[in-house]
């Protein structure tokens, strides 16, 4: 039934991912749940509605690539990869435990399905550009999707990557910006303002689309669209902490850890 209703499938996976990620953070007493939740619907859409991959063959040369440039959002990433079948769900409770393969930031040498090691911001986008260039050189059919935070756009390396992508017309590359408007301590616009982000990317030679980052139908339409004649930048307007009333739009949930009451409350809401 779900197979015939892609939006319902994505919603179901996203709900499971949020519950799973929050459980991981609660158990580990560490993590970045605010950014996990702003990115969850985007990732559920990619893994369960858009990307071409085979979890049994993580090295398949023609797989679509997803690069989590905001590498701290491992609650969202690991829950997505487990849901997609890259590794067993019973690995998830080891999140951040001694010698776990589920490090606080992703390591491609530990887990299948991780394309590159991220954590320091501004790294994933340049690596994604390299992957896209490799595809361009060989005429491969795979597409590359990279997700950055919006605060992460303050890192200069992103603009090096943006400039070259526009110059080389990397149509096989999609940049998704998780535009929750909050960075670790406060709002992006109070810190070093990003707006107008759309005009900046257009000036760098990109096609820019804005979308509600929590609307699977809208995300499916935008992320699943055929390549155009420029690299595509998707500004996904999101809510940090989306789905849990007391976390939404509260900057301190960037790396907040729930107490037992908060955890119970969140589980009641995430249904």
């Amino acid at each position, binding site marked *: 039934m779900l197979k015939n209703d892609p939006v319902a499938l994505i919603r179901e996976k996203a709900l499971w991912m949020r519950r799973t990620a929050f459980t991981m953070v609660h158990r580990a007493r560490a993590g970045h749940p605010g950014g996990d939740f702003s990115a969850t619907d985007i990732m559920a859409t990619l893994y369960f509605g858009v990307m071409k991959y085979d979890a049994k063959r993580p090295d398949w040369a023609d797989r679509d690539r997803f690069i989590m440039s905001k590498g701290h959002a491992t609650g969202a990433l690991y829950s997505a990869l487990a849901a997609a079948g890259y590794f067993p769900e019973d690995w998830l409770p080891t999140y951040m435990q001694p010698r776990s393969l589920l490090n606080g930031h992703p*390591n491609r040498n530990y887990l299948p399905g991780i394309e590159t090691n991220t954590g320091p911001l501004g790294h994933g986008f340049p690596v994604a550009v390299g992957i896209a*260039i*490799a595809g361009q050189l*060989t005429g*491969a059919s795979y597409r590359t999707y990279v997700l950055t935070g919006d605060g992460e756009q303050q890192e200069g390396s992103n603009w090096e*990557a943006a400039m070259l992508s526009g110059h080389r017309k990397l149509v096989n590359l999609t940049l998704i910006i998780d535009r929750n408007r909050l960075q670790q301590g406060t709002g992006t616009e109070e810190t070093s303002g990003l707006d107008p982000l759309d005009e900046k990317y257009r000036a760098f030679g990109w096609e820019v689309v804005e979308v509600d980052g929590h609307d699977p139908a809208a995300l499916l339409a935008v992320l699943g669209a055929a390549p155009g004649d420029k690299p595509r930048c998707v500004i996904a307007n999101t809510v940090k902490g989306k789905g849990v009333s007391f976390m939404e739009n509260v900057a301190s949930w960037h790396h907040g850890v729930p107490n037992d009451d908060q955890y119970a409350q969140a589980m009641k809401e995430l249904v």
Partner: protein
Amino acid sequence: MAHAAPVAAGMADCREAWVKTLIEVAEADPRVVCVVNDSVGSSKLNAFQKQFPDRLINVGIAEQLMVGVGAGLANGGKVPFVSAASCFLTSRSLEQVKADVAYANFNVKLVGQSSGIAYGELGATHHSIEDFAWLRPLTTITTIVPADPWETAEAVKWAAAHEGPVYLRLSRMPVPNLDVPDRKFQPGKAEVVRQGDDVTIIACGTTVHLAVQAADALKAEGIAARVLNFSTINPLDEAALHAAAATGAIVTVEEAGVRGGLGGAVSEFTAANTPVPVEKVGFPGFLPTGSTEWLFKEFGLSPEGIADAARRALARKKG
């Protein structure tokens, strides 16, 4: 560029061997590509670009992007040689070298051009004498410092075939081919260039031929100096260091800072395992204005300076 030093007879710029060999490996392996930061000319890559225009990816003056793109190309199945002046490659993009190449363990070949003090009077911003200290803790990267054109060619061939991150530290200073019979390139193994048991001179890169001249001068004084071409900085050839310590006195020579470089590595190892006097020839820190040739002589990177260091080490030798 700043230096167009005349090349004396028998001396060669190793970049010629670099690009000639790179073209050979690229002809044999379509996965081989080059990534540069507007450094086509200084990397001597014009001939490569002419032959493989699509396989020369110029990212512009953007070193962070350059190294990240290298990692991405490796993810996409390519064998990227990321070539740039080593001062920028290893410092501007050090976090990318650490996270995207070393930690992610991608099959990327970092090629540091015009390393050490090749840019002489251009000053400390353009010197790359800290790179050993920065890269030595990144243990997944094999670091090779070829001593001459022959070894440069061998190292490029080896790097292309090896699966894993490599840092090739090349120079533009003309050097002669070392006179060693039956040479065989073995990464991770020091090459014995001169036999001797009184003192061991451990050198790398542009300084090895100077160490040979020092050993020849010492021989006239009755001192038998062993000379090692220690071209692999990481991983260290521990057996060669044990054997060097057994001579009772060591001199290290490098076109690099002595803190954290080859001398630092040798000192760490011997202090922990087989304590022995170590005299370090290299640079103490930021250098005054001067040409490459002047700076070499001023800081003792000369046959005379190295021989003096050997005498100092011998004076400290026990028994």
